[in-house]
């Protein structure tokens, strides 16, 4: 009885643990309600996102971890750090959030003096940069003179650092001009200065006597707020009266200057001012009340802009892809162990956990599609998530057909690796970024891009099966001719799918290219990459049909397909030419080289003869060239 129930209990425990991690966050009973603040909508990079996303994206641009950990293993919620930056900058300036990995850059910034700081000596606070700001700017400007493709590591890093510092300065000036001692008092004074000041200006223009003091006061205010225009990044202030969505969100400078026109303080400015004053005075109750009042105001005035940021804030917290990664690891362990002990029980556990992981993976994918209002693949990050999803889906079918655990192992590996890739790509900035004009067509994104991504999925899956073939072949005793044959059949089937998807996807890409810039085929690197996959899959199929390769050969060729696909997927982005390039990725380049080397080693191992035990199985008669049997 217990033996039968054990797998169920285990799966339920895992599910319960997941649910507890993904439940909406509850704020601390006393103290500032950062959770609700994190949901407040703002416009950044052309889209409305919650404050929570602003915090996470900014941190990931500053230290490539997307986190602030003042004490080891005690991360501060990103949004709590953001509140400090926006409202108590003097304190945020001491937070060591900037990470420097380049040793030359570290030297430039006095890195050798920092050896005493044992914990993360390469993390800097804004204050620690202060003596170097002009040097950093000088070096960054010099580095920008060089072509983006030919910059060295130091030049790229210094530009990145300069941009991160600029971003930090902009964040500090998002809700108030940095260094305002009490923003609420300031805008009260400004509101009072406007009528008399405007009168003074009118009088002066009319050549009448005017109030000199009032004139100068309003001039000072105007200049102060106009200077804020340089810091435009977060557009936090909604203008419910705006005619269309383009002008609905204002930067603090615009919102304040609007007062001169309308003669009244924008309500949103008032709410944020109360919020800032309460926070600076340590008044948690006042802060929480102001957040809640502001939310009510937003619900009344711009109700359409709230759903997605709300959902996105939860999505950030729940991190379904991260949870799915954990599950994929569990699936892998269970599935591999099932080849050694309790085959039935463990296989069942692996199957259920895999289903759970797939549900999370799918849910995350759909949520992202809703948030962005786009088909699933819009950038490299989302392609990683989707390629993994497609591979897992194919594996579910494989496992259903063959029921030998191989599908589960492949699903776990493909799911985990692609989500790991996505996790690392995510730290390059906003993953839900707006699409550039060329890509702005849902029809082609939904067809060409999706099908090509499925082509990657299936080619990788065939390669993964090839890897399993090579590894299991090393364990001669369990590597039966039946296993070899069924792996060979699986790889062949998946290669057929891969050929179909990659060919159709490539063709759809050609049609898109013909529709949008008049050439069906332009020999662009990304197009060529897709073509290489098609050609390689075609070679595998023809070699098999001709009888030139059998199970082992097709497995090794499929492993080589991994190299082709990785080059097509990531390598082409590293070339830095063509219409499809998204930018250079250094670390990724080394990883790619390592991956390719690893695959070549596996192929080498696969080519080695293995001492076989027992009688050789009879060689099947060669299939007729060009004939499709099986």
């Amino acid at each position, binding site marked *: 009885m217990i033996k039968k129930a054990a797998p169920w209990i285990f799966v339920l425990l895992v599910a319960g643990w997941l649910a507890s991690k993904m439940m909406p966050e509850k704020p601390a009973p006393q103290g500032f309600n950062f959770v609700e603040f994190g949901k407040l909508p703002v416009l950044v990079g052309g889209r409305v996102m919650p404050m929570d996303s602003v915090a996470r994206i900014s941190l990931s641009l500053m230290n490539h971890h997307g986190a602030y950990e003042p004490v080891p293993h005690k991360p501060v919620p990103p949004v709590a750090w953001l509140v400090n930056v926006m409202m108590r900058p003097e304190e945020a300036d001491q937070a060591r959030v900037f990470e420097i990995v380049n040793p030359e850059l570290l030297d430039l910034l006095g890195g050798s003096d920092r050896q005493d700081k044992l914990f993360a000596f390469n993390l800097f606070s804004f204050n620690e940069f202060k003596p170097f700001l002009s040097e950093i700017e000088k070096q960054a400007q010099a580095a920008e003179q060089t072509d983006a493709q030919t910059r060295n590591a130091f030049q790229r890093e210094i530009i990145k650092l300069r941009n991160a510092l600029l971003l930090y300065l902009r964040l500090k000036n998002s809700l108030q001009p940095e260094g305002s001692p009490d923003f609420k008092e300031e805008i009260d004074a400004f509101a009072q200065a406007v009528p008399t000041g405007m009168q003074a200006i009118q009088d002066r223009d009319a050549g009448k006597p005017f109030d000199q003091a009032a004139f100068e006061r309003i001039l000072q205010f105007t200049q102060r707020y106009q200077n804020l225009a340089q810091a435009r990044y977060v557009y936090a202030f909604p203008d419910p009266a705006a005619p269309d969505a383009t002008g609905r969100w204002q930067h603090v400078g615009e919102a304040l200057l609007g007062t001169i026109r309308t003669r009244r303080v924008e309500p949103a400015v008032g709410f944020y001012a109360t919020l800032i004053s309460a926070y600076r005075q340590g008044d948690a109750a006042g802060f929480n009340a102001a957040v809640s009042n502001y939310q009510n105001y937003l619900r009344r005035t711009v109700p359409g802009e709230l759903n997605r940021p709300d959902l996105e804030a939860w999505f950030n917290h729940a991190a379904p892809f991260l949870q799915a990664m954990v599950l994929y690891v569990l699936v892998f362990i269970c599935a591999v162990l099932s080849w050694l002990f309790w085959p039935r029980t463990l296989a069942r556990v692996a199957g259920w956990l895999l289903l759970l992981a797939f549900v999370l993976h799918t849910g995350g994918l759909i949520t992202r599609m809703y948030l962005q209002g786009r088909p699933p693949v819009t950038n490299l990050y989302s392609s990683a998530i989707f390629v993994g999803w497609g591979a897992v889906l194919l594996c579910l079918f494989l496992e259903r057909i063959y029921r030998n655990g191989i599908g589960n192992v492949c699903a776990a590996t493909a799911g985990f690796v692609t989500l790991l890739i996505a996790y690392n790509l995510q730290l390059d900035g906003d993953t839900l970024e707006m699409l550039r004009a060329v890509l702005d067509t849902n029809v082609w994104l939904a067809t060409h891009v999706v099908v090509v991504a499925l082509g990657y999925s299936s080619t990788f899956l065939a390669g993964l099966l090839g890897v399993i073939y090579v590894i299991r072949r090393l364990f001669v005793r369990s590597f039966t001719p039946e296993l070899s044959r069924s792996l060979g059949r699986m790889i062949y089937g998946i290669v057929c799918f891969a050929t179909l998807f990659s060919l159709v996807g490539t063709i759809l890409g050609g049609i898109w290219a013909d529709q949008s810039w*008049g050439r069906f085929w332009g020999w662009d690197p990304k197009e060529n990459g897709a073509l290489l996959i098609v050609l390689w899959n075609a070679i595998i199929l023809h070699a098999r049909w001709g009888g030139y390769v059998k199970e082992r050969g097709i497995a090794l060729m499929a492993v080589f397909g991994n190299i082709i696909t990785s080059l097509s997927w990531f390598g082409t982005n590293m070339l830095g030419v063509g219409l499809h390039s998204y930018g250079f990725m250094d670390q990724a380049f080394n990883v790619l080289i390592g991956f390719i080397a690893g695959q070549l080693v596996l192929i080498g191992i696969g080519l080695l003869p293995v001492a076989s035990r027992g009688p050789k199985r009879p060689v099947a008669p060669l299939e007729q060239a060009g004939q499709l049997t099986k």
Partner: protein
Amino acid sequence: MIRIKTLFRPLASLKLTIICLACAMVLVFVGTLDQVHIGIYEAQNRYFKSFALFLPIPGTRFAVPWFPGGYVVGGVLLLNLIAAHLARFKFSWKKLGIVVLHAGLILMLVGQLITSIFQVESQMRLDEGERKNFSESPYFDELAITDKSQPDRDRIISIPDSDLRKGRTIQVPGTDFKVVVNDFYPNSALVNPGRLPSPAYPHLKLGPMAVAVQIPKTYKQDERNVATAAVTLLDKDQPAGSWSVSSGFPQPVNFQVGGKPFQIALQPQRYYQPFSLQLLKFRHDRYAGTDIAKNFSSQVRLVDPARKEDRELSIYMNHPLRYAGLTFYQAGYDNNDRTTILQVVQNPGRLVPYISCGLLVAGLLLQFGMHLFRFARKMQGASASAS
């Protein structure tokens, strides 16, 4: 008879197919990598629209072919495909998918050949308000001689830049003129004469404020080669004048022969059309609060006197104008969003890829679909017998 067979068998072999596909992979791979150095256009010419890849022998002007180019690989693959079908495939419903698929492939290869031979790409740059009845080549220049003696229309005779080589004499078609090319720079920089390293530094004088000096050819995607030529015009073998002209220096040179006014200019090669386009308004939309382009669109007026057309229309991303066998695409912008750049493509084989793609996809679906169906039946049978 035996001879034909011995020739035919290797041509139809599956091994040859695999060798061709492998060669194609090498070609595509190397051709893609080299784009970093020589740009997409030059890479196309060297790797894909060529018969062989050449390796120059250092110190000499000769180069040895070391690998088949795109035409050879594609051509052999085409022959191989056709031969294989003739030799091996007998029609059966089971193989319908394969036949359709390969027919699509053959059509696609032929279509690519048609495209690479006949496709003409050019660009039309229009400032707001400007009207043009020609587009210009982004790569090639021409030496244009314009007869301005007719009051209502100009007669233009042009010589492509590929004919311009130092020391050559070219008969201008349809006239008594001959052009002697005294000097020719395939790429040049226009500088102020005062900035020459020394007065003796080789240069061609274009005007009082501009001289051209030769620089290496560029292959960068966003740069164009600026050709400069020094020419002498002979009228019935008598010198009529000598000038330096450059495609980077827009002013044509005026001269007279026998009392008739003429102009000569080196300019981007032009493609004249019987209709004109006028840019009314260019729009460049950005996402709120960013510099990320959301859309580019050109509001244009199309005037075609022959067909009595005079209408307004807009060209934007993924929404080109197709007219008179040409397609106009929104390609770029310039001049603070006041100039539009339209890509103009003429491709008589435009529909071939569509048909061949349809065949390919249909063949693949048919073949793998049948496979899957048979496989599923087999598995069902297996599981039924197991239980």
